[in-house]
């Protein structure tokens, strides 16, 4: 078979395959007690994944208690009710359940999965963690040392240094402008009372999103939700205000030893609710998506060998939006890589993209979408994300049509609106040759 035939075969597949739809059947469930959740029921494997998200996260910290929500989140599983840290971990592992507690700038996530055979026991244990965490002083002190150890490492980690500079520069005094883990000083000063307060601020019913996937019926889930979350406090702390993004382009160099530099670059983005979001999303995919055929990957890696990888993404947070990217490169190659990225930025802002690029990005995005719904943990987590974006349960069936509807003209208009070469700012942590602050 010749090359042309193979490619033609591929094209045929593309042309005659109707837009894929995610065949995921989402039920909206309301518990007898009024707690709402989404559910994808699948009884093939005897376990359930449950994802709970509390909106707010580390951005609820006050400047004085920076890091309190992060430390609190890490302490939820360090003893509850009659069980100390050891007792809680032994009980959880004895049930072969998994509970993961994570905080980020917009929320606290509780991700769990548990076997059908001991679901009630696993949920009783999780309930005690969410309602009666002990925050024993010994546990606070031990986990605090782990956080401090992480912060000391971050102080010498080029990726963490770059992220910190980028945050500060972009968002100033807003909570988004500093590391949610806190500083050595603020974390050292946190008391048990601060942790208790952070718990009451962050964990409440007025900010909750829930989803489940796996071996559970809607009725069983409703019952579970009331038992698990029904007696949480009704209200937590007020949500943070909108962040103002500082948008002045340029380069900031921070000296750091080593053969390579770490580079973060970015500018303003747009909201998921923006009518141009899907066009922007396709545009990002074409410019800096993780695919080998994306423009930046082609120009910086494939053609010039300047980096192992470069990509960009639309970062949509609850209170700010950015278009951000990153790469690492040998110190002597940084200047050329930045030059190439700036040229690509200007080029796409001026000319948009080609018909071919748009067609390929569409088939990629529409083809990749149904593949996301793979595995109970993943599905539960996606379902929480969708609810937080204000979507309806039928969204997976219509999402690809929205992608398909984007035209070349849309992209051109959005590129002119979104891509701002003059706003593009680079943080370079390393010892780059011929790169100076500007």
């Amino acid at each position, binding site marked *: *078979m*010749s*090359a042309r035939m*193979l*490619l033609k075969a591929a094209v045929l*597949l*593309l042309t005659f*395959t109707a837009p894929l739809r995610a*065949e995921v059947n989402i039920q909206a469930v309301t518990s007898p007690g009024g707690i709402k959740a989404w559910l994808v029921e*699948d009884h*093939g*494997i005897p*376990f359930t994944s449950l994802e709970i998200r509390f909106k707010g996260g580390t951005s609820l910290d006050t400047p004085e208690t920076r890091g309190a929500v992060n430390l609190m989140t890490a302490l939820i599983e360090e003893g509850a009710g009659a069980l100390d840290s*050891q007792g*809680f*971990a032994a009980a959880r*592992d*004895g049930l*072969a359940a998994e509970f993961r*507690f994570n905080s980020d700038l917009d929320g606290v996530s509780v991700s769990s999965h548990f076997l059908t055979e001991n679901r009630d026991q696993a949920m009783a244990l999780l309930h005690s963690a969410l309602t009666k965490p002990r925050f024993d002083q010994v546990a606070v002190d*031990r*986990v605090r*040392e*782990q*956080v401090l*150890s*992480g912060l*000391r*490492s*971050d*102080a010498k*980690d080029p990726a963490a240094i770059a992220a910190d500079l980028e945050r500060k520069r972009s968002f100033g005094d807003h909570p988004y402008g500093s590391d949610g883990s806190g500083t050595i000083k603020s974390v050292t000063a946190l008391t048990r009372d601060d942790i208790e307060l952070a718990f009451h601020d962050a964990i409440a019913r007025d900010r909750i999103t829930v989803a489940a996937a796996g071996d559970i019926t809607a009725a069983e889930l409703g019952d579970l939700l009331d038992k698990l979350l029904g007696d949480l406090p009704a209200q937590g702390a007020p949500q943070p205000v909108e962040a103002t993004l500082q948008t002045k382009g340029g380069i900031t160099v921070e000296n750091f*030893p*080593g*053969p*390579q530099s770490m580079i973060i670059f970015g500018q303003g983005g747009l909201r998921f609710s923006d009518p141009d979001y899907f066009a922007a999303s396709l545009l990002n995919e074409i410019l800096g998506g993780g695919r*080998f055929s994306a423009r930046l990957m082609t120009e910086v*890696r*494939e*053609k*010039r*060998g*300047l*980096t*192992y990888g470069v990509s960009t993404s639309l970062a949509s947070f609850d209170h700010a939006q950015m278009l951000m990217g990153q790469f*690492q*490169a*040998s110190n002597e*190659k940084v200047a050329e890589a930045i030059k190439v990225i700036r040229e690509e930025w200007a080029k796409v802002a001026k000319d948009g993209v080609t018909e071919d690029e748009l067609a*390929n990005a569409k*088939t*990629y*995005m529409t*083809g*990749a*979408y*149904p*593949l996301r719904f*793979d595995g109970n*943990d993943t599905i539960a987590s996606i379902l929480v994300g969708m609810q937080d974006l204000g979507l309806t349960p039928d969204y997976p069936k219509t999402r690809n049509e929205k992608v398909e509807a984007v035209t070349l003209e849309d992209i051109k208009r959005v590129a002119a609106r979104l891509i701002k070469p003059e706003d593009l700012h680079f943080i370079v942590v390393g010892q780059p040759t011929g790169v100076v602050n500007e």
Partner: protein
Amino acid sequence: MLRTLGRTMFGLIALSLPILPVVASADTVSSFTLDNGMQVVVIEDHRAPVVTQMVWYKIGRADEVAGHSGIAHFFEHLMFKGTEKVPSGEFSATVEKQGGDDNAFTTQDYTAYFQRVAADRLDLMMQMESDRMVNLNMSEEDVTTERQVILEERGQRTDSDPGNLLQEQMSAAQYLNHPYGTPVIGWRAEIAGLTRDDAIGFYRAYYAPNNAILIVAGDVKPDDVLAMAKKYYGPLPPSDKIKPRQRPQEPPQLAERRMVLADERVAQPYVARSYMAPERNPGDQKQAAALSVLANLLGGSGTTSVLTKALQFDSQTAVYSSAYYDGTSVDPQTFGLVVVPAEGVSLADAETAMDQTIAKFMKDGVNAADFARIKTQIRASQIYARDDAGGLARMYGEALAVGLSVKDVQDWPDVLQAVTPEDVMAAAALVFNRDQAVTGWLTTKEAAE
């Protein structure tokens, strides 16, 4: 406990924490062998219309010719550089156009390529993967640019990370004679010297159906996969150059090795120890199973493990501790320990506390409650594993690529369940031999002076 601790600190060590082993039930797995010697395994999971194709070559870093370190990994990159039918860059572009993902990875023992796509695109994936098994056609320019990418990759993953540099040095000291002592990515100077001719020679010698394993996992029927595999991979000629892998083996190790790596980029010092340890062998996985359970007992939980309890609860010696072991390899492996001291605790004191904890474990033996919990978790992990067909594909591929059989993979959970506390202690007594160990300290420049 804190989940993000150590995300960059421990480098590769953090990636090889003792993960409980998993397996798929036999009724969803079928295996075949094509006439040209290519092995085919199909894992069915019909819950989502997705398929993963993986092709594993039984050729890794440890099979390279001396002086050409990194060629296996370098070649993995070059496999994306095109054939007459699918020009350079088109392979990934075609997968991406289908909405799929593709990539590849190289280890000491194997090189694997995979795509994850909608199940009805498997035919096209096989067409392209079989094409590049024999028809690769790379230009001098492709080779030159890709060598630069790989030097950047080495810069990013290894040279920029003191933890990975220490691990590289420790492996080099661990193996006196066996090729596992050389890093998968290769030594920088040798990577820089790799040529197109080296790559072509390597390709012709090792890329052939009788040195490859095809794993297909997802929404597929075994008969359909077999028919497709016969169509695309079946006509490829086997190579007569594939021989059993007989690498130089270790002489008796008689002297402990110790090293200190001081680097100004280190913020959080730690002590790491590796011991020689046996690997899983076909039909004989008992010792490896005991070592897997041992690693879980000593360091598998951030709260209840022996090391954690002793160093983070009963005393405040450490902020983090772990044990790791992965016995899925062709030749003998290592069993590792790592302790990150608490603020104000020296590496010497941390190491002493670690050794005292191990000595006490050897005296006290296995805690029955801990042991029962780990057995429960192993049983449950078989249930959870069925949720991830791609993960199962990887697990089968890995095992088959190091010479284990489908039966070995399916026996593994039973072998693990059969492990007794006595087996664990016997395995511990075997590996905890300081004459066969390497101890590494990662420290700040200031502390070293």
